[in-house]
């Protein structure tokens, strides 16, 4: 029973991070119909930056803030410099270009930092606090939940309460009509990528201290988990991404805890295949068929 509680909390905590990362994928998908396969490496770049800044300043939080800001900038730069040129090409091209960015980013990081694992620092204790003798949740887990919750609320508020959010939603659904109504659609896409860059950066900062460590390829498994989460949630729906993230987090935690930690990547694969074969529109799709 203790173990179940532990695994559940751990799964939810991981799931919260996957949810945030999946949200980053959904933000870009909705605007551009592109899955940003470079999202993982972009997050790693910002995490290394946080590492360097934190080491230089001695403050975790300075690095944290700089990483978030650089995620925002990186997202915009990637869109403006690269992805813009393939937005109207066949979908294969965008996938390949994003993968090119993966190799490029991993190569550059390797050149600067080398390929050894570096510890990723956690700002709070990861030791679970006990409630009535049962270890339940660590301070770091609480920090993760809080950070993701704040992020989700902020993104939701941006989309539903602000003019910018209205423009972004309109441009994502009906780019042509939006342009006729005076929306600079190209700018909303850049903004979407920037926002996704920030969200991805946060997810990276939160997940790397949980046993992954810093390495140019550290986010590969996180990426595929978050991709699966986004597909489970339906790719188009930010709320679906959240639920999908939690589902994937729990599944991975239980499989890792009760079966074998080496089996978690296979569990991701199984989950993805199952969803794609049984409910390709995601768990929350209506009756409308989706071409996948």
């Amino acid at each position, binding site marked *: 029973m203790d173990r179940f509680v532990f695994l559940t909390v751990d799964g939810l905590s991981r799931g919260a991070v996957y949810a945030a990362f999946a949200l980053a994928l959904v933000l870009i998908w909705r605007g551009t119909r592109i899955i940003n396969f470079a999202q993982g490496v972009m997050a790693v770049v910002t995490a290394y930056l946080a590492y360097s800044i934190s080491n230089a300043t001695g403050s975790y939080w300075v690095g944290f803030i700089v990483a978030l800001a650089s995620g925002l900038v990186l997202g915009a730069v990637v869109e403006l410099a690269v992805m813009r040129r393939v937005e109207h*090409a*066949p979908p294969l091209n965008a996938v390949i270009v994003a993968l090119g960015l993966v190799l*490029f980013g991993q190569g550059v990081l*390797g*050149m600067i930092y080398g390929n050894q694992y570096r510890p990723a620092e956690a700002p709070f204790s990861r030791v679970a606090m006990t409630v009535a003798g049962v270890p339940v949740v660590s301070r770091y887990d609480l920090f993760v939940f809080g950070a993701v919750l704040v992020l989700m609320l902020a993104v939701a508020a941006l989309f539903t309460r602000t003019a910018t959010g209205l423009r972004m939603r309109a441009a994502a659904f009906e780019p042509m009509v939006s342009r006729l109504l005076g929306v600079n659609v190209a700018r909303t896409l850049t903004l979407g990528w920037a926002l996704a860059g920030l969200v991805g950066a946060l997810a990276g900062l939160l997940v790397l201290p949980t046993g992954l460590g810093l390495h140019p390829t550290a986010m590969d498994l996180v990426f595929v988990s978050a991709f699966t989460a986004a597909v489970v949630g339906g790719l188009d729906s930010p709320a679906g991404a959240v639920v999908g993230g939690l589902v994937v987090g729990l599944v991975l935690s239980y499989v890792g805890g009760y079966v074998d930690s080496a089996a978690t990547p*296979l569990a*991701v694969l199984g989950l993805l295949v199952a969803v794609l074969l049984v409910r390709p529109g995601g768990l929350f799709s209506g009756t409308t068929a989706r071409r996948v």
Partner: protein
Amino acid sequence: MRNLGIAAVSAALLLALTYLLDPFRDYQLATAAAYLCAAAGLTVLIGVNGQLSLGHGALMAFGAYPVALVQNELADRGVSAQWTLAVSVLAGVAAATALGAVVGVAAARLHGPYLAGLTLVVAVAVPSLATLFGGVLHGDQGLSVYLLPPPAALGPDFPFERWQAWLALAAAVLTMLLLANLMRSRFGRTLRAVRDDEVAARLAGIPVARTRVLAFVVSAACAGLSGAMFAILAQSVSPSAFALTLSLNLLLAVVVGGLGSLAGAVWGSLLLVLLPWLVDTFTADLTLSPDLRQRLAGNLPLAIFGLLLVVVMIAAPGGVQGLLKGVLKHVPQVLAPAVRGRRRSAGGLDDRLQR
């Protein structure tokens, strides 16, 4: 059959070439040949059939591990002869083909980023099998591959690298021959029809899903052969040799060479071998700290590969072969028949990506 002639001539030339090269160059040639098996198969899948796979590194692992397992098992039982290599390689091809069939069936209805995502997960998940079945596969450490020295008939001083080159070149020539014929066959046309317009293909009575699965199976068999060759070249197998980066490198070879063109796969495979070597040679001339040199060693080629992939895809989606085609368009009319021949043999040189 024209392709057979070309294959025989290239095999003879390559055979001669291996005698001219020193062992290190022979080994490079062997590596390029091993890459070519997988890259050519991937070309058929991506360029000709329009299915993107990021999981070919995993299929290669399925081709490689059986070679180690069968070779070592037979050696342990005292069966030690050159022919066992054929059995091991076939076992590898069979294993990769089986995995390819499974992935192909799962992927048959998927398109675009969904297909890319699924195969990406395959690429990331498969290496974890080595840890999961650590008792047999020895986890991250991997297995060594028991190999006999080259046959005595080749002479006492025959370098092992040349023997490896022969094996890999034989595999590559065989793959190219089969795939070239396949692309010119009815099945090749079917593959292209499915790529160009699935609905139209379905209306024309083509079983779309089956065609896509078959394309995956063919391509997986090639990847399996490639993986088996890598096991023979490295004389060992480990999960890190078949990580996601390998799949992405193959993608690079296919894209930079020119999607849909077997000749392009040759350029791409050569690039995969030559670029890291060129970078090493270049950095060796610079006075660098050992630490920096080590960091540059694997990573600078990786960064260049990534940059190439992005630049080629944006600026010249036809790849090397597409550029050659463009150049050849402007040569005088005298050469025109040769150009036409080249185009035909290049098969469905891909306009899809320029569309």
